[in-house]
């Protein structure tokens, strides 16, 4: 079914509009991050201006972003690894033994509003004097990543044929041995998908860190607000900060596009 010529022209124009609409704002953010605040206020210098890296120097040095980048990396990495360790075996069990009710409990976490967990967490952890530490922050991010990983991995294990495991059992491996030596190596693409998605969601998470992080454990999405004052906004610095937060994750996503897409659409076509 080759589409007609008029449809192809329409498609090209429509998709060009979509692409420009999606990319232009991001490009605008990056352009503004390379301008002085004087140039940002000058509409005559929308596209033609002398670029400067002052905003980035400001963000990385004066605003202490190097530390916040480290915080974000550590929290997202630790939450992802711990969630994989807990989530992958759990998803395997839930898939192979069809523990649908247990799975539902884990997946309910996707539905619960984060604030309703923050209040009790805040109660408990501030009494334990743990608010502001990394442990609480990592645990709270696992609330996002664990259900995500269980969800993606359950779908992955559901689609993985059981014949190889059975053959391994016949060859003398135990059930756990078969899981470790046969199923796990076969699941590397699924685990990569789940891990990448979990990392992205944790990196982007804002609300938990807003409440639970301290001055030294702040993650990047919270640190952005350092550039928003009550009276005025340092637009150049703010756009540089926004770019520093979001550009790395967009670049990573482009390199592992296939995994990101399969993770985001996991379970969507099972109906």
């Amino acid at each position, binding site marked *: 079914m080759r589409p007609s010529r008029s449809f192809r022209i329409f498609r090209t124009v429509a998709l060009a509009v979509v692409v420009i609409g999606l990319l232009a704002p991001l490009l605008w953010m990056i352009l503004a991050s390379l301008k002085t605040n004087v140039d940002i*206020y000058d509409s005559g210098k*929308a596209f033609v201006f002398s670029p400067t890296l002052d905003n980035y120097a400001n963000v990385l040095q004066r605003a202490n972003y190097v530390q916040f980048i480290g915080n974000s990396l550590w929290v997202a990495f630790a939450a992802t690894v711990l969630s994989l360790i807990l989530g992958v*075996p759990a998803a395997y069990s839930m898939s192979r033994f069809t523990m649908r009710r247990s799975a539902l409990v884990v997946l309910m976490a996707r539905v619960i509003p984060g604030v309703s967990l923050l209040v009790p967490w805040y109660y408990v952890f501030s009494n334990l004097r743990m608010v502001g530490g990394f442990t609480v922050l990592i645990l709270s991010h696992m609330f996002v990543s664990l259900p995500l990983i269980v969800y993606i991995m359950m779908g992955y294990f559901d689609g993985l044929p059981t014949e190889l495991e059975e053959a391994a059992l016949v060859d003398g491996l135990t059930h*756990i041995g078969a899981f470790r030596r046969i199923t796990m190596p076969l699941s590397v693409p699924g685990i990569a998908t789940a891990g990448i998605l979990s990392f992205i969601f944790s990196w982007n998470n804002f609300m938990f860190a807003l409440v639970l992080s301290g001055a030294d454990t702040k993650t990047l999405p919270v640190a952005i607000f350092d550039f928003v004052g009550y009276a005025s906004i340092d637009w150049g610095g703010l*756009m540089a900060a*926004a770019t520093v937060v979001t550009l790395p994750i*967009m670049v990573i996503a482009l390199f592992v596009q296939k995994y990101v897409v399969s993770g985001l659409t996991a379970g969507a076509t099972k109906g």
Partner: protein
Amino acid sequence: MSTVTTPDTRSPEARPALPDGSAWSRWANAHRKWLFAAPAMAFVAVLIVFPVAWTGYLSLTDAEGSVRAESEFIGVRNYLDVLTDTDRFWPAVWRTVAFTGVVLLFEVVLGMAIALLLWRPFRGERWVRVAILLPLVATPVAVGMMWRLIFDPNIGMANQLLGWVGIGPQPWLSGQHSALPTTMFIDIWQWTPMVVLILLAGLTSLSDEPQEAALIDGASTWQRFRHVTLPLLMPTVVVAILLRGIDALKTFDILYATKGRGGGSFHEVETLNVYAYGLSFDYNDYGVSSTVLIIFFLIIIGVMWALTYRKKGLQR
């Protein structure tokens, strides 16, 4: 069920490899179902089920101020207060419903249109897919800040573009009535790509035969979409609505990034989630905020139940 209370938090790899016949190995293999699931279940129980239960309890108390302060059990008084509060609570409910309804409508319609355009392979497809992926993975708070600059009434690009076509400047995020629609626009910009990806996955999994049969029968493009593609795709559409709907109800980041605490000085973008957050962490009014959260939670469950119920009906 003793395995649930004493979870083995080590990963399977970390467990020592034991010879086949050992008692531990036999026990572990026999109980692997719970051994594998228990750590995750314990985490969920301690960090999710227990807090939700506690929120339920707090909603029946007058807890406020310091987290160490004494609180008293006051029954359903918070619920009566909240449900008769036409000042903050009901407007927040209305905004949550309006926000979710509008963004879902636009995201599904636009998402469907774009997914249909991308369905058949063509040259340059790769670039369109890249453009679709970027907003989706961008940090929502950063996205909020980005649009804050674009929609700034004085220096923003949005008003400049309007000026070029002869339309006067708009207040966008700073207008009392335009703020909520503007945040809806931002949400639509960021999350329509999500719907595109889900629907595209659904479209790609459809078989070509019904399409070809309809074509041979002389069905027009619209008829083929309406009577062949759409019914077959319906389960995927419901999944997209479900996933996006849950997240749209809970939208927080872009609202906080663009309007700050309390959804702006007139609470113009204060949804239930923003309201509950403010009650908890700006006013430390934990009892009332828990009440709002429980009601909010029930609304989300209700919407989900209605949608999954409808989904079953559609698959029949």
